[in-house]
Every structure is written in C-alpha cells, then in structure tokens.
C-alpha cells in the first residue's frame, strides 16, 4: 500500500509535467493550428535556465524562477516573430511554419549543447528533495487554474477562443490576430519552460531531454483532447500512471516505458480521436 501511494504521488508529479507540456501545445494549436514540436526544446531551455541562475549563479529561487519564465515568454515571442509570422503574412500553407519550427528545434538543441556541453547538469529544488513533488503538483494546479480563469472569465481569453473557433470572423470582429498568435507562443514558451524547470531536479538538465517530453506532452494532448484546457492535465495524468504502472508491474526493462506513449497514442487515435473530453 505504502508502495502504491509512493507510485501514485510520483505518477501525479510526472503527469503534471506532461500536462504542462500538453498545455503549451494546446495554447499554440488552438488559435493557430500550428503544432510546435519545439516545446520539448523549450522545456530544455527552461531547465538550463534553472541550472544557470539557480545552481551556477545561486539566485534565490523565486527571483530565478520569475527571470526564467520572463525569458521563456521572450523565447516564445521571438520564435513566433522569426519562424511563424513571416510565413503567415505570406499566406504559406500550415506545414511551412511547422517545418520552420522543426528547424528552430535543432537550433535550440544544438545551441544549448554548444553552450553547456553534452553532460547533464544538476538543478536545485526550492524546498528540498522530499517536497519537490508537492511543489510540482501545486505549481501545475495553480497554472491550470489561472489558464482556466483566463479563458473563461477574461475578455482577452474570449478573444483567444474566438480566434480558435473562426479566424476570419474573429478578425472581422476587431480582434488583433497577430497579437493573439504572438501571445499564444509566448504563453506556450512559459508553460513549456516551467515544465522543464520543475522536472529538471529529477532528471537533470540535459540537451537531449526535449524530444521525450515533446512526445509525452503530445500524447497527453491526444488523450485529453485539444478542445479543453483540463484535458491536457487529465491526459498527462493518465499517461504518467500508465507509464509508471508498466515499469512497476510489467516484467520489462525500464527503458520500454518509452513505448507506452506510442501505444496509447495508437489506441486513442483508433478508438477515440477527439480525446476524452469533448470541446464545449
């Protein structure tokens, strides 16, 4: 029982990370339709930010965290400016920005490996090792609550929703499309960077950490459905439990846990392609 409780807590914490990455995808997909595979590398940038500010320069955690998230906002915004907006203005097909973002993904990864070397780096926790999982869960819940509030209760959130429902109509109603797109990428950067910063103490900051997170986050999104913000968190939790139960109870080497996202992805695409939660 004790054993199972520990597993449940650790699965919930991982699920929160997947949920945050899924949220980053969702924030960008809904208004633009663009799947940004670079979210995993953004999480990595957040993790390395944690290493640089919190471990190397020894900044106090709240200040360092705020600086990293502000920087991630900038990264998201700048990526949109460079790799997405020029293509949108030219009226290029949707595939073009997705490919440009794949190029950006490689640039992010290789720049980090160039700057910090190929070895993993330790990132500190704010309240010590034993409280890190609680901190991850609490922070994620706060982020999801804030996002929910933003979409449901604020005028700008409604503008976001309007753009994701019908771009043309929203533009005709006087909503500034490019501002919404820029903000969605900035917010995606923050959500992904936060995921990286939170998960870094457990898995260390490493330049190859991005791709697995990108896969797990997208699987969480497919499970939960693109329609609702809560779906991202639900999908993340389900995926994390599936992974941890497989590792714990299936007689397989731990590495095969990486097969769980693929299997769930296939199952959900076949059986329930709209995800668990229907959009309202």
């Amino acid at each position: 029982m004790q054993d199972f409780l520990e597993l449940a807590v650790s699965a919930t914490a991982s699920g929160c990370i997947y949920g945050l990455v899924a949220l980053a995808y969702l924030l960008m997909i809904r208004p633009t339709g663009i799947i940004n595979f670079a979210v995993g590398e953004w999480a990595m940038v957040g993790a390395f930010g944690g290493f640089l500010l919190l471990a190397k320069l020894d900044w106090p955690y709240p200040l360092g965290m705020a600086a990293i998230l502000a920087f991630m906002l900038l990264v998201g915004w700048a990526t949109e400016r460079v790799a997405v907006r020029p293509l949108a203005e030219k009226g290029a097909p949707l595939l073009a920005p997705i490919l440009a973002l794949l190029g950006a993904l490689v640039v992010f990864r290789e720049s980090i490996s160039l700057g910090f070397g190929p070895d993993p780096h330790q990132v500190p926790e704010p309240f010590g090792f034993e409280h890190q999982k609680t901190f991850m869960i609490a922070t994620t819940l706060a982020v999801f609550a804030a996002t929910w509030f933003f979409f449901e209760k604020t005028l700008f959130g409604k503008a976001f929703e309007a753009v994701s429902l019908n771009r043309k109509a929203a533009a005709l109603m006087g909503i500034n499309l490019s501002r919404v797109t820029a903000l969605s990428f900035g917010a995606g950067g923050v959500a992904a960077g936060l995921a990286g910063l939170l998960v870094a103490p457990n898995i260390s900051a490493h330049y190859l950490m991005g791709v697995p997170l990108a896969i797990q986050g997208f699987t969480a999104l497919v499970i939960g459905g693109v329609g609702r913000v809560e779906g991202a968190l639900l999908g993340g939790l389900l995926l994390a439990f599936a992974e941890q139960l497989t590792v714990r109870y299936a007689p397989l080497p731990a590495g095969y846990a990486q097969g769980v996202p693929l299997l769930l992805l296939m199952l959900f695409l076949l059986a329930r392609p709209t995800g668990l939660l229907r959009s309202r």
Partner: protein
Amino acid sequence: MSSLARWLALALLLGGAAFFMSGYYNDVYRKLLLWIALALGYNFLFGICGQVAFSHFAFYGMGAYAIVIFLFQLHLPLPVAIVLGVLLCALIALAVAIPSTRLEGFYLALATLALAQLFIVVLNEGGAVTGGTGGLVDYRLPPVFGARITGPWYTVVIVALVLGTAAVLRRLDRSWFGRACRAVRDNPEAAAAMGVNVAQTRVIAFTLTSALAGLAGMVYAFVDNTVNPPIFGLENAFLLLFMVIVGGAGRHAGAVIGAILLYLLPFVLSPLIGHHHAVVFGVLVVAIILWQPHGLIGVYDGLKRS
C-alpha cells in the same frame, strides 16, 4: 537515346567511378549513395505525398538489424532474409500508419517520432538479439552464387539500389498513384471529392517508402559490417527531412542535390566548427523555408526562367 540506355549509362558512370577510388573515398561515396537512396524515398513520402514522418531512418535501421539477425542468428538463406526483412518493415509501417493517417493533422509525425525513439530503446535493451549498446559486429556478407562481393563491386550493388529506387519512384510518381499523392498533399478534400481514397493513399505511400528504407538499410548492414544504436539515432531523421527541404521538396533532383550538399557539408564545416554543423543545418532550413520554399532546385528554376 532511349530511357533504358540512359539508365545504363548512368549505372556505368556511377558504378565505374567506384573502381577509381581508394578505400576512404570509396567509403564516403558508398554512404553518400545510400543517403541519396534514403532522400529519394523520403522525398516521395514528404515532398510528393506531403506527410511528415520521423521514422524513415528508423526503418533503415530496422532493415539493417533485421538482415543481420535473420542471417546470423536464425541462419536463414539470404533471399529469405531479404524478403522477411522487407515484410517486417512493411508490417510495422502499416501498424503505425493506419491509426495515424485516419485523421487530419500531424499525428503521423508524432507517432513516428515516438516509434523512432522506441526503436533506439529496443536496440539498447535487446540483449543478445540486438547486441545491446555495442550492437552486432563481426559478420560478413554470405557468398552470392558462390562469389564474395567485396570492394568496389559492393559499391556497384549500392549503385544498383540507388538507381532501382530512383526508377521505381519516378515510375510511381508519373502513374495515377503519384498524381493521387500530389492531390492528397495539396488538397485532401478536393482529392477525396475526385474519388481518391485519402487515408489509403497515405498508408500505401508510407508503407512503401518505409519498406524501401528498410531495403537500403539491408544494403548498409554490409558497408561497415557493424550495426549499433548510435548510427540510427534521431538526428539522422531530422537530417533527412532537412536534405529534402533544402534541395527542394517534391522533386527527385532536389532530393539528390539536398542529400549531396548536406552529406558533404560537415566534411567542409568540421575543421571550422567541429561537430556542431547541426546548428548550421537548422539555420539553413529556417532560412530556406522563409525565403525559398522550393529549395535549391527552386533557385535553379528561377535562374533558368530569367
């Protein structure tokens, strides 16, 4: 000159070149040829059929491992091993493609990314079957009709593979299937309205090109006579995509140009920036997409027109 004669002349030229190269250049030449074969196949999938997949290089690896395992652990005869290897790749491709291509969007990209990642895990954890992190070593191509194919003659086999791949894909591109693929890429709704089965076209294109990648992998297995997990890493899947984008997606000549350029570029860049040519590739790709969406072949077309 008839088209058959042109193919034969090309085969003589490419194959004959191998006999004038020393060991090192022969090795580089062989790998370049294999990259061209891969880029041609990937161009059909991505450039002509419009599907983003990251598994092409993983299927190359599957083919390579499959033939070695079939030949030297199950002791099957060479023709049987080749057929089984191609079948294995096709079956795995089908299992991934059928769920992921049913829907609009980029599910195939993610599913194949996960597949490529999982493939490396299986190689590392596969114990005696895959040889773990060290991979499989110390094997030799069994004699074919009593003769051992070595040195430049094996390069001739690779030339045959490249030209065979090119011929099949060109023929396919000009058939109704190629036109269906282009229609599916440009406008799936319109293609469906014209009676093209969109999902089926995508699944067939994916399975076929994946099987071709597997075949190329089988040929690769006897180039270095060793297969190990780092060779088939995910970076190469990105490199393949970048080759096709830089050369010009949807054009066979573009794939060839992109493969040659991006394969040879690191040899030029390494003395300058070491192992970090991937940064240059990333920037190059973003720049090409922003300013020249038709790739280098598009630049050439522009020059020819003006």
